[in-house]
């Protein structure tokens, strides 16, 4: 389950707005499910309906995009992983934004989707380029932490730990965590509450 993420390239899709929450990314009624299958078609369902075909996710020119450009505090609210899953299943495999909500960011890491931050000026310029010329290719390099789009070259950032996970292909931490069984039990053994707070069936 290891796969390195170093360079992501492709077409971009601009989604303008601050504080876009996970209820908007995937409304709660679509969480009535036991798998993540089929969530892609419901990404931004209510926003898309309200905009009557004018939402970026509905515009023909962005249908082959794989890089989503957002603004401030994207993915705030509920911890539902259904939100990044819906975006991923729609076709996105990297996001650039001014800032991301923390749980959303962590959920994206866990499914192998980098969320990179850039300053407000850069995200706005990227959105402008993609609005004017939807076919412009974007290339993001996680080793040099640079984004290149048309004539624009800019710096992007990400916490060092998360970046290392993508570059080394260890963003799926499960195997690594499980392999520390002995140390986990030692840590648990030192916690005073471990024996007085059992919830046995």
């Amino acid at each position, binding site marked *: 389950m290891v796969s390195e993420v170093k360079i992501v390239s492709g077409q971009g899709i601009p989604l303008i*707005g*601050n504080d876009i*929450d996970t*209820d*908007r990314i995937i*409304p*709660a*009624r679509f*969480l*009535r*499910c*036991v*798998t*993540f299958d089929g969530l892609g078609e419901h990404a931004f369902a*209510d*926003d898309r309906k*309200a905009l009557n075909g004018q939402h970026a996710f509905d515009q023909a020119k962005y249908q082959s995009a794989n890089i989503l450009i957002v603004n*401030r*505090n994207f993915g*705030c*609210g*509920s*911890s*539902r*992983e259904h939100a990044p899953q819906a975006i991923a299943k729609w076709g996105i495999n990297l996001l650039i934004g001014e*800032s991301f*909500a*923390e*749980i959303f960011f*962590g*959920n994206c890491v*866990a*499914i192998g989707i980098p969320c990179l931050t850039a300053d407000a000026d850069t995200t706005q310029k990227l959105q402008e380029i993609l609005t004017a010329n939807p076919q412009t290719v974007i290339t993001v390099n996680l080793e040099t932490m640079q984004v290149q789009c048309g004539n624009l070259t800019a710096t992007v950032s990400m*916490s060092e*730990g*998360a970046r*290392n*996970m993508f570059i*080394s292909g*260890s963003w*799926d*931490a*499960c195997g*690594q*965590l*499980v392999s*520390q*069984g002995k*140390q*986990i039990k030692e*840590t648990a053994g*030192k*916690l*005073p*509450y471990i024996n*007085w*707070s*059992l*919830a046995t*069936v």
Partner: protein
Amino acid sequence: MSKGTLFDKVWDLHTVGILPSGQTQLFIGLHLIHEVTSPQAFAMLRERGLKVMFPERTVATVDHIVPTTNQARPFVDILAEEMMQSLEKNCQDNGIKFHNIGSGNQGIVHVIAPEQGLTQPGMTIACGDSHTSTHGAFGAIAFGIGTSQVRDVLASQTLSLSKLKVRKIEVNGSLKSGVYAKDVVLHIIRTLGVKGGVGYAYEFAGTTFEQMSMEERMTVCNMSIEGGARCGYVNPDKVTYEYLKGKDFAPKGENWDKAVAWWESLRSNESAEYDDVVVFDAADIPPTITWGITPSQGIGIDQFVPTSEQLPEEDRFVAQEAYQYMDLAPGQAIKGTKIDVCFIGSCTNGRISDLREAAKVAKGRHVANSVKAFVVPGSERVKKEAEAEGLHQIFQEAGFEWREPGCSMCLAMNPDKLEDRQISASSSNRNFKGRQGSASGRTLLMSPAMVAAAAIKGEVSDVRDLLN
């Protein structure tokens, strides 16, 4: 870098090691699961041939999808029934304790764990639900996670995380009459913004929080995430210990004394260093209500919807979106806004003290004709306690519906929903577009007492006019 805070101490005690990525592998003392964010996690475990490493440290309940009227099985909603069956089977197959409907212990996950004494100071607590921050009220480090992380906790009882910074939010003084814990947290979020807390744990300190009950502290910590902070906490004290003593899973006998001594040692040191400190005066906090589409778009009950010019430049974009969606004009008074639906409940305000405060307002009065009002206790225990006190009668005589426990219209994954453009006065935590089940439905967040006042008057009202 913070030093000597409760957050630092609990983080260090639970650190298993540093992963090659540089992130911390953190042990999770208590894992709570529910029907929405766990089925895929169990499926991932099965795909990888992994087992639950510490089944006794995971506790399950069902809350988001349960109907609050007819709870007979199978549920009318076949998708909800499928989720329910999936949770029942996963718990049974993996030896996980499940508090099912009718057990007497079912309820909203963030209500039942504290009331059973599962939530304790000094623990790390994770749950696939952003309002897990609630449990920080006990001096636990508690935060929401996604489904892949639920898988990680099931498989290893640990998570891969980056350490947070710590901001101390100090509020001092006594709250004025008609001002509740909900107003305090709405005021904090209104001041610091919805993303002000990103990257931080919030330590709520000062005399205002010291004077609060555990349930009030839970209301405040619950909404930390609405300010962007993944977790929020209050240092444990006598109020915490009094609440915990005698609860089902609280330590007993000599373990109790050992526990209290340990909990005391975890409190932030007098000399603790914080990454940031913000100070508020309780006297400045009015009954607070949101007017927009994010929890930071709040104002005092006597104030007016802010004009674009009154807002910082960076907040104007969302404000424009909010004026349009809410159909509220800049400069308009919030008081007097007509209300269609009143909802009292949720993990923010569905506990017994919340129902008592709302009942004080409802007693001897009647819900306005134009309003549909309902009360949803946070758990089966809360419901039982409320009925023993006769609160259900007060509500019913006043024209409120009295429902079965669940998340209800907070997020409307169940039959409780707004319709079309309806506007609700809600004691829940989120006023996002479409949050309460209608893509064009509107939500005004406020304290449960203010919701009761809105129900009686049929419009946004100042609860202080109805007290005494």
